């Protein structure tokens, strides 16, 4: 057993679950502390090693942060996503990150890997509190002076992916009119959630050599939305379609106004930013990840045979 310590937030989430699975394969080489709202859902996993600890803690709560192991590598995944309320997003993604940064400073010599989002790079972030919160969290981490790495996954695909569910719904819509919000020419670079988890595992091993690094993390292919939807249809033996764009701005305006007065909405204005922005990686991967990226799943492998 080694003295190396890893702290994970958001371990029960979409990417966190995959990361825990990947890390458990080499569990004997480090100790791990998961800060989670639901420790039992981790400790009851058959792959959860007995020397790992799951501590009940909600980073958005006012409760004081548990002290972190000295020199720990912190992987910060916990986040409120686009469907959450603005207050919840600010509390979790900004205040929670600030608290974690302070805790990391106390655990001297640590390194934080912040899993941000490609949304932080969107040109059009109107009404998208999630994207704004990720930008703020990134800035706070950079300005904190602690050793850090920032990773911005693009459109993450896999079981439980909200973006993938939305894409499948669009692709397989039985509507006679093949409508897409925004433009079918908007670019996307899907990446499999397992590849994100494997990348994070690599970064843990590379830390602290990756300090001050920040990069976008996408899969091997950049596709236009229309082409991605067509490939999804083909994966289900459906014919390709020529998509008709629906203007996004009026829809987002109405949703934003309705959100302002507190109406329950099926989708938030910010979530539609996916269809208004280029979601492909704009920075190259660090050379240390080049070998790993050559093994990333293709779009065909991500969508092949998957069902909603």
């Amino acid at each position, binding site marked *: 057993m080694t003295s190396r310590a890893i702290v994970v937030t958001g371990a029960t989430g979409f990417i966190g679950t995959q990361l825990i699975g990947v890390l458990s394969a080499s569990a004997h080489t480090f100790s791990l502390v998961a800060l989670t709202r639901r420790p039992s859902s981790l400790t009851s996993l058959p792959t959860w090693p007995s020397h790992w600890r799951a501590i009940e803690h909600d980073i958005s709560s006012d409760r004081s942060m548990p002290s972190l192991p000295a020199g720990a590598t912190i992987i910060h995944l916990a986040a409120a996503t686009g469907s959450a309320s603005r207050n919840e997003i600010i509390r979790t993604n900004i205040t929670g990150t600030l608290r974690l940064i302070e805790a990391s400073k106390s655990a001297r010599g640590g390194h934080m890997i912040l899993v941000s989002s490609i949304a932080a790079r969107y040109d059009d972030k109107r009404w998208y509190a999630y994207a704004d919160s990720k930008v703020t969290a990134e800035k706070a981490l950079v300005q904190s002076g602690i050793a850090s790495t920032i990773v911005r996954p693009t459109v993450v695909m896999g079981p439980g992916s909200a973006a993938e569910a939305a894409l499948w719904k669009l692709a397989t819509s039985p*509507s006679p009119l093949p409508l897409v919000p925004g433009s079918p020419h908007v670019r996307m670079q899907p990446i499999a959630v397992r590849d994100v988890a494997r990348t994070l595992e690599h970064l843990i091993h590379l830390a602290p050599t990756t300090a001050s690094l920040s990069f976008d993390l996408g899969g091997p292919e950049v596709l236009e939305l229309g082409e991605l939807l067509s490939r999804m249809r083909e994966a289900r033996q459906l014919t390709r379609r020529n998509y008709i764009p629906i203007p996004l701005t009026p829809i987002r305006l109405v949703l934003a106004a309705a959100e302002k007065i507190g109406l*329950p909405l*099926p989708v938030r204005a910010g979530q539609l930013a996916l269809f208004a922005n280029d979601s492909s990686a704009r920075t190259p991967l660090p050379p240390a990840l080049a070998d790993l990226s050559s093994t990333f799943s293709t779009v065909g492998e991500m969508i092949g045979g998957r069902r909603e």
Partner: protein
Amino acid sequence: MTARGTEDPRAEFRSVARYLGTQVVSDHATELYAGMLSSAGETSSPIEKTLLGMLGRGPLSAALADSYARRFFPHGVVRRRLTLALALLESGAGTHSSYDRGIGASRPVTWAALAGAGIVWLTRTVAAFLILAPVHLVASLWPRSRR
């Protein structure tokens, strides 16, 4: 997941009553509405949840929700709640008179009033469509939230 709609059925009743033409409602009628709300049913439709949310946010908002529901969910939970509210107001001791009363005016005035009502109805229908159709469209393209 189903929705019971507004968090405060009493506020919803007051809002709906104002839309239906009654400014002041009795506590008794309000409590009856709150107690009988479950009889109007529930919905799992995201757009109907939005319309339900609009019922409790003032007479204009309720009017838009009604105009849209009339076209797209004529037998839905929104219309059933409005029917329940109207039934209570029409049969309430303090409120029934405004619904039972006839129009005491000359024929031209009556026609003018009807024309005015038609214009209001048309304006409301168009406004409801412009505001809610985009939300409805996106709701139909977006997967239901699991939150």
